[in-house]
């Protein structure tokens, strides 16, 4: 069990996309679109194939907690600080690379169609491949610093891809916002990392005797759990580490209060939204928390915070999602909301459930985004749902695949989302380590969110695909599209923009095969992925426990559990104390079943409400507050951005720097000049006055001598 092995293939998983990025970045400009697409997809395909190969090759060992290292070189070594460029494959990272590469591959394929004709085709795929490299590095890293490399790397790619349409001011703003907000999170992450290093003397996850490395998790496992008090947050121990790292997660995974970048990030091309801002990157926070589960489980306060923030975000984003008209914004808030779910799961100790939701979410949310992309392309780059409607007949494949995603996210049984969401709600309900009443409150929040999810997703489907066509004529559209800020921009170069190709022409139509095939594949995933992790209770009831929760079973060795005794895990990292979770007192199949039924009811109810409501009244005006996203952006701007800007300009620069410091410096010069100017008047030019000065000097001097 959990012996350290080597697996040199891991490097190829990350290096293949890197190579693709390098080739495309350096030479892509002169390549044909076909070649570019081929290179981009094939490198990801290589990663995917190897991921699958490695996974199946080692699945047994992995399930038993084995780890496979791939040491490339020592990156930084100073004194007792060491960071390797080394990869590790354990069950957690194995699952991650599987769905990441898989989903990513299909999104790449989709994108080859979606981006067709774009001037920056090569650039786009270079970024996308670079993103794959970063994401896989993040997942496969065997230490926190390398994870941070991937962490920042995906942030960079996100930045580049959000700002892909660099002629558009809003895209650039969104890109910068994304990067900066992520940096705020990284700030917390970095400090947490340093604190961890300060305590454990290592930033590696696991022991690796071959390299003489001791892991931080091994250290954490041996620590006593922090008490469940607010003061633990500031005590500088494990709880502090966990909270700080969670700050990083809130940035990357768009949680309150740092979620604001994600909706804006929809400025990027839709495949990007699908890949980065739905399926993979944004779940990095969840990955990190799960990865550090051995720390979190020792820090109940931090767990509690994670759960609260997760739940709050889930509800909060869901409400906003209800009020959006932009199809991608709806999905964006939906993503935030679902991420909140995942954190809720982590927060209540159900890491596997969280990861499971990541897994299923990757499929259905990628599907939904790609579907929306297909729609947007179909209606010629229109994202406002008010100008859609009745698209079902024009884009049947898109509709039906999205239909699968819709049901999945709403939590209709059989569909993937059902299993994961249900599991989370159940785990929340029976959560330990936090006050029971809080567990119930969280559950209620989760349930309400589930209801709202079903409602707004139904709204999306209804408004977009059903009902009357509201697609404006070309004339109207042109009018509606005339951005006020564009009118005065006299100089418009032959630029690159989203509106360049296939603009404003003809009725909506179905997307080409290269785009619909990925939709279908992902739809299949959205439907069936959930069967990998049928909750135990459900399984017990339906199949008599014959179908095990593959997912949980597989992930188990990589996840630590609340209350695991330090000594139990003394030898290894997150030990597979299988019994811990299941031996919980509150757990009973009946209750689980009951809750499952309840959640089904919620899902069905939500869909019902949505259908009833929006079929009749698709253009229902949502509350202004929701439409305006609670004015959070404005509040941030007024409370943070503007004060800093104004303060820096008017106080720091103009007053402190120029007036005080420079004023002092120049003042010294002026002072010297003034003194010099005064002293020169001793020199009256009058010989007699000089005599007087000499006499005075002599008198003083003589006095000093004879006194």
């Amino acid at each position, binding site marked *: 069990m959990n012996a350290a092995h080597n697996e040199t293939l891991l490097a190829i998983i990350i290096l293949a996309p890197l190579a693709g990025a390098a080739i495309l970045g350096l030479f892509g400009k002169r390549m044909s679109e076909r070649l570019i697409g081929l290179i981009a997809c094939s490198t990801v395909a290589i990663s995917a194939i190897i991921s699958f190969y490695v996974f199946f090759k080692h699945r047994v060992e992995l399930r038993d907690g084995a780890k496979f290292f791939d040491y490339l070189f020592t990156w930084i070594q100073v004194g007792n600080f060491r960071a390797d460029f080394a990869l590790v494959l354990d069950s957690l990272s194995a699952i991650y690379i599987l769905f990441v590469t898989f989903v990513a591959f299909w999104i790449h394929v989709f994108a080859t169609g979606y981006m067709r004709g774009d001037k920056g085709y090569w650039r786009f795929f270079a970024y996308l491949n670079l993103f794959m490299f970063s994401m896989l590095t993040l997942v496969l890293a065997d230490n926190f610093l390398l994870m941070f490399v991937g962490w920042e790397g995906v942030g960079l790619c996100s930045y580049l891809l959000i700002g892909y349409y660099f002629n558009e001011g809003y895209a650039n703003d969104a890109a910068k916002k994304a990067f900066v907000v992520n940096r705020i999170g990284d700030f917390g992450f970095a400090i947490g990392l340093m604190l961890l290093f300060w305590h454990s003397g290592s930033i590696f996850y696991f022991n690796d005797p071959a390299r003489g490395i001791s892991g931080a998790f091994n250290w954490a496992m041996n620590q006593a759990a922090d008490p469940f008090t607010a003061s633990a947050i500031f005590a500088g121990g494990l709880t502090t580490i966990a909270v700080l790292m969670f700050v990083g997660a809130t940035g990357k995974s768009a949680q309150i209060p740092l979620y604001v970048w994600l909706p804006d990030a929809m400025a990027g091309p839709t495949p990007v939204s699908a890949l980065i801002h739905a399926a993979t990157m944004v779940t990095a926070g969840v990955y990190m928390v799960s990865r550090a589960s051995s720390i979190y489980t020792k820090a109940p306060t931090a767990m509690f915070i994670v759960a609260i923030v997760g739940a709050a975000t889930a509800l909060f984003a869901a409400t906003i999602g209800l009020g959006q008209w932009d199809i991608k914004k709806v999905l964006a808030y939906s993503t935030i909301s679902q991420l909140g779910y995942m954190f809720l799961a982590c927060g209540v100790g159900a890491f596997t459930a969280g990861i499971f939701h990541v897994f299923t979410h990757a499929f259905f949310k990628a599907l939904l985004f790609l579907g929306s992309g297909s729609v947007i392309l179909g209606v010629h780059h229109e994202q406002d749902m008010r100008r859609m409607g009745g698209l079902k007949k024009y884009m049947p494949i898109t509709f039906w695949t999205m239909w699968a995603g819709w049901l999945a996210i709403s939590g209709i049984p059989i569909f993937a989302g059902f299993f994961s969401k249900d599991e989370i709600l159940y785990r929340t309900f029976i959560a330990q380590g936090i006050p029971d009443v809080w567990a119930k409150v969280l559950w209620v929040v989760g349930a309400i969110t589930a209801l709202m999810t079903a409602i707004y997703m139904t709204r999306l489907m209804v408004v977009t695909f059903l009902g009357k066509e509201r697609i404006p004529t070309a004339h109207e559209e042109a009018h509606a599209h005339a951005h006020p800020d564009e009118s005065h921009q006299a100089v418009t170069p032959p630029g690159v923009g989203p509106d360049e190709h296939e603009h404003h022409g003809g009725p909506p139509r179905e997307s080409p095969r290269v785009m619909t095939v990925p939709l279908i594949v992902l739809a299949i995933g959205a439907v069936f992925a959930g069967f990998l992790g049928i909750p135990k209770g459900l399984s017990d009831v339906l199949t008599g426990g014959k179908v095990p929760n593959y997912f949980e079973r597989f992930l188990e060795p990589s996840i630590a559990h609340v209350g695991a005794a330090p000594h139990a895990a003394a030898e290894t990292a997150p030990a597979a104390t299988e019994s811990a979770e299941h031996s919980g007192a509150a757990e009973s199949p009946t209750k689980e079943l009951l809750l499952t039924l309840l959640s089904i009811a919620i899902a069905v109810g939500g869909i019902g409400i949505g259908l009833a409501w929006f079929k009749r009244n698709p253009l229902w005006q949502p509350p202004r507050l929701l439409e305006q996203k609670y004015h959070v952006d404005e509040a941030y701007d007024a409370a943070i951005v503007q004060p800093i800007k104004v303060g820096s300009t008017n106080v720091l620069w103009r007053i402190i720097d120029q007036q005080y410091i420079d004023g002092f410096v120049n003042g010294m010069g002026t002072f010297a000049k003034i003194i010099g100017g005064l002293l020169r008047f001793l020199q009256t030019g009058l010989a007699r*006055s000089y005599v*007087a000065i000499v006499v*005075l000097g002599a*008198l003083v001097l003589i006095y000093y001598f*004879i006194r």
Partner: protein
Amino acid sequence: MEKVLFIVLAVLAIGTALNVIFQRNPLYSALSLIGTLASLSALYLTLHAQFIAAIQIVVYAGAIMVLFLFVIMLLNVPKTQPVVEKHKALGFLAIPFAGAMIAEAFYVLKTLADKKITPAFAIDTTDRAVGTTWSVGYSLFTQYLLPFEVTSVLILMAVVGAMVLARREGD
């Protein structure tokens, strides 16, 4: 007796000296200074410094001061020349400065008051005593030979200098 003589001469010297600075006309100042020099010469005699007393009269009063008078007459500053009364403030410094200087001098000198010293001329009254022409002359050509010779350079230089500055243009 000696003290009376000293006091008389001292008062004379101080009086004429003050007159030097109180006179507006440089001519009278110069004449007044001659009086001071003469008083000093007499004082030198009381100190048995006959040679110095003599050249005080001959060289100083006789030659140097005459040169002064000569120049004063030569330049013949018109009396009517308006006196520019700038910087009068300096005049007011005179009293405090003079007071301070005198105070300092007497602070130093009063330490000598209790030092009883018998003048050498009261003991040694030979014609080779200090102050006689012999003694001065002897020293001048023995111990003070070099300074004496160097004064020739000084004088030569002064002659050249005075000539350069004072001669008329075009010479």
